[in-house]
């Protein structure tokens, strides 16, 4: 098993955190993990992306040219990475901020109105957790409980309310995928 995930969005949308939580959760579950940020002369509001590898074996190259999963939090991210996703891959997109359709028909697509759900929860910054919840539910790559554990580690020292909000956002993202599945 080798999962290759690219997560991309505006700086400030928490895409690095999605990646760290996935890597952390994978590590807790005894898998090999790597998290690679894009780095450069970045600025506030610019695009940010990171790559996460989760594997049952030792990870060779940490460079991913063709991710199996793309999590696109905004339109520039979809524009940049859509063509790289491997055949039969999965694109999870933030429907609240992306207006166009995915052009390819050889990949699976899940649309999550992440910002809308997060707004309803009272904090639009939790949109990243909604999307992460959806991905975890869809893929089963790690258990949701493990993501909660990772969240507790990564947000250690922050206020408890924030933790609960994030957990709720994760659950709602997962719920959306479950509903989608049962509706066929």
């Amino acid at each position: 098993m080798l999962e290759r995930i690219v997560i991309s969005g505006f700086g400030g949308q928490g895409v690095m955190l999605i990646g760290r939580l996935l890597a952390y959760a994978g590590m807790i579950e005894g898998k090999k993990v790597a998290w690679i940020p894009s780095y450069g002369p970045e600025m506030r509001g610019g695009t940010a992306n990171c790559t996460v590898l989760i594997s049952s074996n030792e990870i060779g190259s940490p460079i991913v040219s063709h991710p199996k999963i793309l999590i696109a939090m905004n339109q520039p991210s979809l524009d940049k990475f859509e063509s790289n996703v491997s055949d039969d891959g999965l694109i999870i997109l933030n429907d609240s901020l992306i207006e166009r359709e995915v052009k390819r028909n050889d990949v699976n697509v899940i649309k999550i109105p992440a910002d809308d759900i997060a707004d309803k929860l009272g904090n639009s910054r939790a949109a990243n957790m909604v999307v992460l919840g959806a991905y975890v539910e869809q893929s089963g790559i790690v258990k949701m409980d493990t993501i909660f554990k990772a969240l507790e580690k990564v947000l250690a020292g922050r206020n408890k309310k924030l933790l609960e909000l994030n957990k709720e956002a994760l659950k709602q993202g997962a719920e959306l995928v479950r509903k989608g599945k049962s509706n066929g």
Partner: protein
Amino acid sequence: MEEKMLMKGNEAIGEAAIRAGCHFYFGYPITPQSELTAYMAKKLLKMKDAVFVQAESEIAAINMVYGAASTGVRAMTSSSSPGISLKQEGISYIACAELPCVIVNMQRGGPGLGSIQPGQADYFQATKGGGHGDYHLIVLAPSSVQELVDLTMDAFDLADKYTNPAMILGDGLIGQMMEAVEFKERKKINLPDKEGWTLTGCKGREKKYIVPFNLDPYEMEKLNLKIQEKYNKLKEKEVRYETVNLDNADLIIVAYGIVARIAKTVMSNAKKEGINIGLIRPITLFPFPEKIIAETSEKVNKFLVVEMSMGQMVEDVKLAVNGKAEVNFYGRVGGVIPTQSEILTEIKKYLK
């Protein structure tokens, strides 16, 4: 056993250094290694009898390391390519004064100010001296975040053992990426007593000197020969490398650091196409693992050296192979990382 932690390469070096007893850090920030300077600031400023200085320049930082090392403490500085160039005079002085210390270079694309993306074009500088005069650093090249931890700790031991500066030669990618690391309990090893040479204040004892010169050429020659003797011992005793699948390989890749990781993916993809690739990954770049390369060249007649440079380590591979096999080269530079598919394409060219 301690719990696994998810750490960035740069931060893992910092933690490893502190656990190895390095409580004296002098640095100047530069991408892509600034997290290391930041980590040392965060940790050392809270510790008693520890010193963190963000120096006014790279040159100042290396000379602070020189001073600290003279007193026998474990000291470190870190930078990335252009900053390491600035440190060369100081490094040469430290090598001449025979002081132990650790220097970290998380390489970026060069030459000049270059780019801030990963590179490996400082190989010559790191392994052949870098500064003026006949000296070498002990050069260790990690290829995972765990190895960054282990080799950082080893670097301090080796530096103390040989009273010679050691360098961790990484790159921007390994510095920036996060992987799981463990800080394992390490075996105690016997290191030489430093008391004979450390400068600790001469009250009540004879004066001691640590100087990077001797104006008598015959004495200076003697010092050179003494230093060379250490390098001979390093070549004899401290060579490290990893080999994978050397038997029956159609071609051997020689690569270090992050590029060796990419090579491992190349190997498993090539295998699916019926191509049998072997790998020699130097872990010590100085001393260079020439013996295993020479031995392998008796059995396999094709080599491909892959680097993020225009061809530097390939020269050492050619020297080791000594004409017994064909040595080819593939490199990407300026901050570009070679992909596994382009390396595989390159390999196929030579196996036609």
